[in-house]
């Protein structure tokens, strides 16, 4: 039995809530009462609960199995973090309470900021960005504000070919032209090409490190020198900070700004698409250009600087406000809980185990899949599709066949610098036993894909999932983005 849409379960006269009787009152709506019904369906609570339980049962989840999506970092989400985020006195605070009544909340945010400063070796941090992509925007805006303040706004941002799509999109949203820097054969940014591209119109470089090929940019200190020599800023996409947390401080690499995806490195749950949180750490030169609001701390306690004019008074030339309130407090609580749970020692172990697990996969699969690059990887192992050459099986088919084996596929077709990419990120919270089972399955699939015989195991996969392959072309050509009530047939209108 397929679960129908909520709207197909409608019966007016039902509701899943009870509310007290509305007290008698004068209406003061100025005649703006809604006339027509909204069209929302009526269901009882049991129906709503069952609907969403049943829907959930068609989802894969990290709690049910390895979720090796490269560049997405699906690791275990501790339940303690969820419990803490719901603690009375934290989860139920209003963002505009008098500051005197939220000193604990501000102290918590500052405590998280301290951890981030210590882990990154950077002196300043902006807490408000709502997600990694907004963090990028925040970083580039601060850079643009600093350049503008120096009378030299510049025009271009350099982005390696292997970058996440958010990097170029962000640069454009911030008013810059984007210039791509090619990669070398070893999967790093081409230093010579960078040098050639740098010039007086370059505002910044955006480099992911470890990069999206799962490799550490060996020349990163040199990159920073070149960038700074050219009068530009070095923005680091911190999406992969989980590979180096506790082992390398970005501040020691010459970076000027870097966002941190709390859900990746610090395990706030991804929730099927969010919410995220993307604090940005800044170097000294960029520190005076942070967004509002921010927290200041003195002997009288914690203060919240919410307005650009107040910031200006204390020498912060804030570029403005990025979102409604102070930031993703719910995510802050989870991330701080995660940090306190791991401690400095545990966070370092997190990075090491993530890297160890990825290299273990790489070493165990390199003879049957085709590694994209040589050498140790960081937290994720990248393969291309050359092992599938002439097999009649595409990367997509291979990924879908994994579903029938009970695994969520890896990231595919990203990064773009590799043909038919397969990017596998196991994370530190997978056991060796799970990896061994995963490896055995991958090896068996690779042999089946490249051997003789029928390939429908791949081309017709998945067959054991709640749905077989979905027609994405039809979805895009004739977009149906919402339920519509059936139009009454003409006969019925008689």
């Amino acid at each position, binding site marked *: 039995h*397929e679960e129908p849409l*909520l709207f197909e379960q409608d019966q007016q006269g039902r*509701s899943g809530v009870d*509310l007290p009787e509305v007290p*008698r*009152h004068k209406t*003061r*709506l100025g005649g703006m009462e*809604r006339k027509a019904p*909204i069209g*929302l369906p009526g269901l009882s*609570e049991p129906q709503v609960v069952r609907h*969403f339980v049943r*829907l*959930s049962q068609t*989802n894969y*989840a*990290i*709690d049910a199995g390895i979720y090796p999506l490269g560049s*997405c970092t*699906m690791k275990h*989400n501790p339940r303690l973090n969820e419990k803490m985020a*719901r603690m009375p006195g*934290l989860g*139920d605070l209003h*963002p505009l309470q008098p500051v005197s*009544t*939220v000193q*604990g909340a501000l*102290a918590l945010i500052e405590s998280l900021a301290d951890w981030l400063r210590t882990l990154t070796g950077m002196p300043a941090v902006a807490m408000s960005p709502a*997600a990694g992509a*907004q963090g990028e925007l925040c970083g580039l805006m601060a850079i643009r504000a600093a350049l503008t303040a120096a009378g030299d706004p510049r025009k271009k941002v350099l982005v390696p070919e292997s970058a996440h799509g958010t990097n170029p*999109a962000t640069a*454009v*949203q911030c008013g810059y032209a984007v210039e791509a820097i090619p990669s070398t054969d070893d999967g790093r940014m081409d230093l010579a090409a960078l040098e050639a591209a740098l010039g007086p119109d370059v505002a910044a470089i955006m480099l992911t490190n470890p990069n999206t090929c799962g490799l550490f940019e060996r020349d990163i200190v040199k990159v920073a020198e070149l960038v700074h020599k050219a009068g530009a800023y070095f923005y680091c996409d911190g999406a992969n900070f989980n590979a180096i947390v506790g082992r390398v401080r970005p501040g*020691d690499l010459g970076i000027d700004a870097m966002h941190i995806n709390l859900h990746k490195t610090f395990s706030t*749950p*991804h929730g*099927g*698409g969010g*919410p995220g949180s993307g604090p940005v750490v800044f170097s000294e030169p960029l520190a005076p250009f942070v967004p509002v609001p921010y927290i200041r701390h003195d002997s009288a306690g914690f203060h919240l600087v919410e307005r650009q004019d107040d910031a200006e008074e204390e020498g912060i030339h804030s570029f*403005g*406000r990025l979102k*409604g309130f102070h930031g993703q407090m719910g*995510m802050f609580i989870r991330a701080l*809980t995660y940090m306190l*749970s791991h401690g400095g020692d545990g966070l370092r*172990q997190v990075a*090491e185990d993530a*890297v160890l697990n990825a290299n273990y996969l790489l070493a165990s699969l390199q003879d049957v899949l085709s590694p994209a690059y040589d050498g140790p990887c960081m937290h994720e192992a990248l393969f291309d599709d050359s092992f599938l050459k002439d097999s009649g099986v595409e990367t997509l088919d291979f990924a879908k066949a994994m*579903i029938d084996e009970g695994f969520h596929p890896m990231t595919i077709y990203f990064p773009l610098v590799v043909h038919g990419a397969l990017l596998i990120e196991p994370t530190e919270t997978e*056991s060796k036993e799970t990896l061994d089972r995963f490896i055995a399955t991958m090896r068996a699939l690779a042999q089946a894909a490249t051997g003789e015989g029928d390939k429908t195991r791949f081309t017709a996969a998945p067959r054991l*999932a*709640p*749905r077989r*392959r979905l027609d994405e072309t039809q*979805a*895009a050509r004739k*977009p149906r*983005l919402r339920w519509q009530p059936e139009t009454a047939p003409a006969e019925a209108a008689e």
Partner: protein
Amino acid sequence: MRYLPLTADDRSAMLARIGAGSIDDLYVDVPEAARLTAPLDLPDHRSEFEVEREIAAFAGRNLSPGTAPSFLGAGAYRHHIPASVDHLIQRSEFLTSYTPYQPEISQGTLQALFEFQTQVALLTGMEVANASMYDGATALGEAALMAKRITKRHKVVVAPAVHPHYAEVVRTLCGFTGDPVLVCDTGDGADPAALPDDETACLVVQYPDLYGQVRDLRPLAEAAHKAGALLVVAVTEVVALGLVTAPGDMGADVVACEGQSIGVPLSYGGPHVGLFATRQKFLRQIPGRLCGETIDQDGRRGYVLTLSAREQHIRREKATSNICTNAGLCALAFCIHLSLLGEAGLRKLAELNHARAVQTAEALEAIDGVTVETSAFFNEFALRLPRPAAEVVEAMAVRGVLAGVPLSRLAPREGGQQDILLVAATELTQDSDIQALVEGLKEVL
């Protein structure tokens, strides 16, 4: 380390398979000078109960609106969330899944997003909606950016009485590159209908506005359209749409709402959820994710993320927005709570909110020297006090009453605005709360 399954033996065996002598060998690409050798100045790992105590100590230093009479609003509202909502969003299959890139094993998330999009479209009176934005303010910023793309004009006009946070986000997102953004002062008496000119991409208004005022948007829609601009409507209290005419029914082109009031806790300002709805004809200019209906290989109905040629992961520098992660789980919470409410429940909830606000206003109007400035409102109104509202709020907080939001916290502090207190009521407002507010104010004023 309770979260780490590898044992020391595992690590040795794995290094051996890799052919590495130690974990350091895997970090060879890190410049030597940047390799941390000594531990950072951070505490070691701790047990669950020690961590709980530490977080509880932070919580203990706050005054929870759940334990005090609270009239705080101005863009975030304390509503009751049914217990089943929080339970359902914590189900592993929702909480610990990723963006549904593999639709065959993500139908739960996808169908819920499809239902969410439908709910948002219905509620706002629009034709289509996306799968959520970070919050109401960023949704509004994205709406203005979309208006610029559609009209190919550069100027954005923000009418008076738009929440200053929202106006600031619009200014940041639309004005950062040098494009003109005209933000009227919140209390500016300017006629918004006179603001759009032939360079204006959109007129941005709020409904109900910052002061809680509910007014007919049709004249503004007409004025905007006449100037070739779009009307972009911000809604900070989405429960209002259960009782008042939908923006879509008054000519709005884009509606950007904060959805927190339905299903999402206050959480000191985030995460919340932005709702984004518009006309069908603007479909390919929508920012963020869209979920669409299709069929699978066996002809069964199913759902996928669609029209991703608008998005950064495909379109890169030509994307409609850089947004990637959105507010998926909060959107799910919104969807579940609204499913529970249904047509009848939402209407009654909205009526209760209005009734409580009217009761609060009437009780306050009986105090000498205090006036309600908002002539027509839903669940929030501006109260003029005989002295600066910020001081009054502080004095009330000492008495354990969260009396509302002083306008001066949001808007320029000059002029008569500083005596304005924004007062909100919801279904959770009790008679005893109103009494505490009135008695407190009488003492404090």
